[in-house]
């Protein structure tokens, strides 16, 4: 009994599409609806304009994009967004600088150790994210572990002020998202055909040249995937800047929190979320094109 091809395809493509529709498109539509509402002292605290297809005309007539106009007019949002993009980009770069050698060492380790090493990278996820970020407070605080060790060793004479600065936020971001960089890079390096590197060596390429012209280009899909997995969540990160950052750290996640919780302005907060998503589509497409190019 031959199953019609089309049915088969539907069977394969259906679940992911359903998943995407249910957990991405539908919530996005709800958030967009709130973003296009007026904030109101009500229960819930907004007055929607959208009341179904039958009232489409009234909806379009009332559509003023007020929330979006507020965001565009206020430099705070642009500043916060740029600052988030900058911090996320820096964190991604640092995660790559730390993660690549780590992944390389893992891929070069004897095969029987590799599974254990991968488990070690994943192990921190067994503890709550929040607790791990809190632990950094204990490490970075003026009388914390790091300062005590450095003082004892005589490296510094005054405690370093790291906690509540941008440096602490970067440390937190790199720490939190490092496994997302290490794992794809490791996967790419592990699949890499070692004989290619040996061939380059036989042909007289010194180690640095082998790394730059053979290993890194071949690992590019993994590096891109890792960069993408670190960058996108880091932009919207809330916990790390809240706990480790100081008054100077301006990140869009925190601004969104203030609008949602302190100002109780659900429409404005939703509009910020929608804009953030749209702005991230750009980098996502960029990464995807790069990845496609790398694969081809």
């Amino acid at each position: 009994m031959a199953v019609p091809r089309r049915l088969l395809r539907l069977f394969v493509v259906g679940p992911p599409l359903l998943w995407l529709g249910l957990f991405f498109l539908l919530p996005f539509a709800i958030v967009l609806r709130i973003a296009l509402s007026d904030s109101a002292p009500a229960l819930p605290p907004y007055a929607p304009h959208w009341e179904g297809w039958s009232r489409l005309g009234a909806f379009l007539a009332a559509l003023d994009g007020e929330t979006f106009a507020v965001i565009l007019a206020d430099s705070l949002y642009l500043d916060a967004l740029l600052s988030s993009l900058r911090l996320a980009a820096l964190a991604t770069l640092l995660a790559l600088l730390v993660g690549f050698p780590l992944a390389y060492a893992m891929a070069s380790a004897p095969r029987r150790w590799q599974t254990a090493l991968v488990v070690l990278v994943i192990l921190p996820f067994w503890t709550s994210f929040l607790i791990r970020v809190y632990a950094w407070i204990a490490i970075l605080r003026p009388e914390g572990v790091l300062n005590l060790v450095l003082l004892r060793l005589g490296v510094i004479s005054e405690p370093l002020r790291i906690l509540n600065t941008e440096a602490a936020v970067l440390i937190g971001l790199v720490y939190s998202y490092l496994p997302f960089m290490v794992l794809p890079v490791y996967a790419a390096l592990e699949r890499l055909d070692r004989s290619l590197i040996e061939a380059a060596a036989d042909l007289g390429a010194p180690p640095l040249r082998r790394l730059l012209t053979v290993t890194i280009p071949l690992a590019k899909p993994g590096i891109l995937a890792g960069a993408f997995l670190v960058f996108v969540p880091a932009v919207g990160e809330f916990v790390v800047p809240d706990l480790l950052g100081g008054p100077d750290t301006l990140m869009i996640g925190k601004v969104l929190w203030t609008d949602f919780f302190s100002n109780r302005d659900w429409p404005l907060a939703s509009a910020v979320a929608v804009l953030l998503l749209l702005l991230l589509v750009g980098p996502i497409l960029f990464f995807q094109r790069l990845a496609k190019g790398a694969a081809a």
Partner: protein
Amino acid sequence: MQRFATRILLAATLGLQALTANAQQDQLRIFNWSDYVDPAVLEAFTRETGIKVVYDTFDQMETVETKLLAGKTGYDLVVVTASFLPRHIPLKLYQPLDRAKLDNLKHMWPEITGRLAKYDPGNVYAVNYMWGTTGIGYNVAKVRQRLGADAVIDSWSVLFDPARLAKLKDCGVHVLDATEEMFPAALRYLGLDPDSKKEADLRKAADLLAKIRPHIQKFHSSEYINALANGDICFAVGYSGDVLQARKRAREAKNGVEIAYSIPKEGALMWFDSFVIPADAGNKDAAYRFIDFVNRPEVAAKNSNFIQYASGNLAAQAQVDPEILKDPGIYPPPAVLARLYTITPYDEKTQKAVNRLWTRVKTGR
């Protein structure tokens, strides 16, 4: 066969319904701050009434508010801070209280109930649980070292005079990340009405706050508890209860950190954590019984002794530990009490403007 299956399904559904209805009957779901009731009180309540208590906790009033605004919280009894009430009452979030079911309200402290009425006119919806002030918490040794051995921390000027605060910068200053706390304090220090809603006044307050910002390490509403207790910071604007909790933790840790709490002489803002029953509460009856239970003078005193806060129950004072009753940070003397103030909430438009000013203060842009 099919009919049989349907029947089983039906029976199962009904059974499940009965089960949940039954569970609701004997269960009281409370939403409150963490460590904010003596566990022995909850046990005694269950022993006496047979009602099981589910005690869920929060660490931020905003979380509670957002849940309440979204509706159907599933809680029968919630403790909210009074300053949120004027915004919530018109939205009919709460059940008006049937005072006939709350015989022990006769023990309440008229002074506190009267001040709470500013937020809940006629005391229709809320019953005070604990109350306190927003003042200054500091590390005695570190502050004296920097401001002089005989320095008295009894004024907002330590915070709002940039020259004085600058001396504390290196040992760490935290202030609350809350407009409704910081703006009234700044206004009061400037000699203006702490409850002012005038834009010009609020701008003056923001300017003052901007001047001290370079010396502030962090704006946060809860981190200072640990930071004070660990000795990481030496000065914080915070809630009396939290500062006293930091003091308690430092004492328990025996880390040599001595924390003190001070109510500035210019006056300070009062806060009132109060019981309300959500309008859609499933077990209102149990909620009433609980409110009445915790307002028996001996039970109110037990809670006060456990969490070391001032109770809104006057009759409880006879059984509150003398150490707590005599602590001016917890039970301020009448002259100080007279200088404490309350404020009314900002309307939506002012709130947004104030929040915007506050973000500018915090980020320095």
